[in-house]
């Protein structure tokens, strides 16, 4: 942090919004891990310290550098879709919309991309577009219901999550392996649908799942940052989020903006699913009876990232890091869901961030007032 060195003048260090956000997020992480550690102590006190270290270390538990790099790649492969879901939720949150439907838009994207890849045999870029559109359509439904019929976007989003799950299960049961509930592999059916790796796999001990999805996801995060902070459209989105009626009064088409925002949000989440399923890292199980957690973890990542696209890149990585770390726990002592538990605690704590900032700012103001008290 370069800000640390030149902070002494004018604005005090803790008064900077960026510093406050980072501080708040770090506090959330520390407390989240602490509560996770306490839970581990309750389950089995003897190995708890080792267990929490395992979660934090994740792939560093591998002794050789090559193996560690390979599994670092795996964590990144799953962090890319998580980042996309987080960006989806964040983009909508800027417009005052809580896009919990990201989970369903993600499912729609998975269904569309896999259907195009496995059933229709289309190349990867077409599959990406299909995922983008499918996720976007799911978003539009929520948007239209919200803009014209005043339906709470959280409830309609949840309903669409389940509708999406059952629809995709039906859609993909035509391309599943005969002996298992999983869809057929990309490698055996349609190699052209696998995302190209453009040589990236060499940096990760030939981990073939490392593809252009990872740099693309980061690029999209940067692009969103630019759109939100430098374009008229981004300004309108934020204005709608802060004061809907004021935005309407000043001539912004708030209904169109709501629908457009949710379309983009949905498309991002849909694209995120394609970023995972088109690497061949995972197959879709057509009998799954719960919505994949990726969209919900995205909520953790986006709030931990301080609602900033760049911060979200790091937050997504962190959430995926501890989620992957959880899978290295000794399954016969500790449940791997302890990572989900920690993520959930972190989201809960993020609810207090606003109060934390308020508290910090009023402390700073009081201090300042006391110092200048004699002069004024």
């Amino acid at each position, binding site marked *: 942090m370069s800000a640390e060195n030149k902070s002494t003048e004018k604005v005090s260090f803790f008064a900077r919004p960026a510093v406050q956000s980072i501080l708040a997020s770090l506090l959330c992480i520390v407390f989240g891990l602490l509560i996770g550690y306490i*839970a581990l102590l309750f*389950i089995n006190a003897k190995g708890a310290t080792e267990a929490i270290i395992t979660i934090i270390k994740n792939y560093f538990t591998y002794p050789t550098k090559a193996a560690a790099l390979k599994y670092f790649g795996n964590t990144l492969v799953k962090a890319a879709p998580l980042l996309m879901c987080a960006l989806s939720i964040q983009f909508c949150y800027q417009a005052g919309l*809580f896009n*919990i439907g990201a989970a369903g838009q993600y499912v729609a994207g998975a269904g569309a991309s896999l259907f195009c890849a496995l059933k229709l045999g289309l190349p990867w870029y077409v599959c990406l577009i299909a995922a983008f559109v499918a996720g976007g359509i799911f978003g539009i439904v929520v948007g239209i*219901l919200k803009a014209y*019929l*005043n*339906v*709470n976007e*959280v*409830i*309609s989003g*949840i*309903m*669409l*999550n*389940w*509708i999406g799950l*059952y*629809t995709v*299960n*039906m859609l993909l049961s035509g391309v599943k392996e005969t002996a298992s509930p999983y869809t057929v592999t990309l490698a055996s059916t349609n190699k052209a649908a696998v995302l190209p790796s453009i040589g990236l796999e060499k940096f990760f001990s030939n981990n073939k799942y490392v593809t252009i999805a990872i740099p693309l996801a980061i690029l999209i995060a940067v692009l969103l940052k630019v759109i939100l902070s430098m374009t008229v459209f981004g300004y309108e989105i934020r204005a709608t989020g802060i004061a809907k009626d004021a935005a309407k009064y000043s001539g912004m088409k708030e209904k169109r903006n709501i629908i457009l925002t949710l379309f983009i949000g949905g498309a991002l989440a849909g694209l995120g699913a394609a970023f995972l399923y088109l690497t061949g890292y995972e197959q879709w199980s057509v009998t799954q*009876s*719960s919505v994949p957690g990726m969209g*919900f973890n995205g*909520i*953790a990542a986006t*709030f931990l990232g301080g609602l900033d696209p760049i911060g979200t890149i790091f937050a997504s990585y962190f959430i995926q890091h501890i989620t992957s770390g959880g899978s290295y726990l000794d*399954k*016969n*002592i*500790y*449940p791997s*869901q*302890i990572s*989900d*538990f920690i*993520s*959930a*605690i972190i*989201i*809960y704590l*993020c*609810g*207090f961030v*606003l*109060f934390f900032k308020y508290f910090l700012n009023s402390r700073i103001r009081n201090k300042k007032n006391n110092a200048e008290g004699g002069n004024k």
Partner: protein
Amino acid sequence: MVLLLQYTLLFASVLILVALGGCFSEHSGVINLGLEGIMVIGALGGALTLKYINPSLPKLLIVLAVLGTSILCGVIYSMLLAFACINFKADQTLVGTALNMLAAAAATVIVKSINIAENPDNVSSTVQYVTAKKALVVNIGKFQFNWFMLVALIALIASYIVLYKTRFGLRLMACGEHPQAADSVGINVYTMRWAGVLISGLLAGIGGIVYITAGVSEWKFENGVAGFGFLALAVMIFGQWKPVNIGLAALLFGFFRALSNVYSGFDFLAALNIPGSVYNMMPYIISLIVLALTSANSRAPKAEGIPYDKGSR
């Protein structure tokens, strides 16, 4: 046909209980999106009681014990929401969502830990309660009466009386409509909102145990409660935040949910050869349509979702 009626009443009971919970919370001014999570925790408490209780105890005692633990778990868990949203003015949507995720993760961790402690090779997240569950039902001919149906009916009547006929209920609703005005006549808005949220925890906690004992004798906690808490919110909106309407709306939704359990028993439905997934989707599709039709002129409490700040009158 009897089976369809039985399941309809069971699922309607769940929806009535949870939707009434949401109704109390929202009338006090707090949007409780954590109902789903509260259901999971209530269900967990009830399921563990069923698992460990001595099945030879009097049936009434078993029913009361299960009811008691579910209520206790639901109320304690809902405190997390009240604490963050009322005292710390946190974003209610965010905290509600966090509670849902936390409940699913915590319940899975707890059940898995218990299973592992019993047998290191059992890493499932399933709780079984085959024998003790029998205490909850009474067979009347072919119809299996569940005591929780009665509980739901009592809750419905009690809610109507409390909300419209008591001082407490009217004060509670005032806090959801215009908290500043309520405060100005000496009602403590924070206390009222805490009461609203805790009552919603109580009702949703019972709803949770009813849901996981409806028709099955074991529950896999990894699955949570499949969006039922949100269906209940849809029921609440469809019922326009009024207990009687909520009861009717719950029957409608309960019917469609029950259909997905028993459709194969009807010859003409089975003959249509519609995939099971379609029936599974049905309650969610219906609720989307219903929401689309009823939300435009909704009677939502005016101040819901806005944290109350004494200073901003």
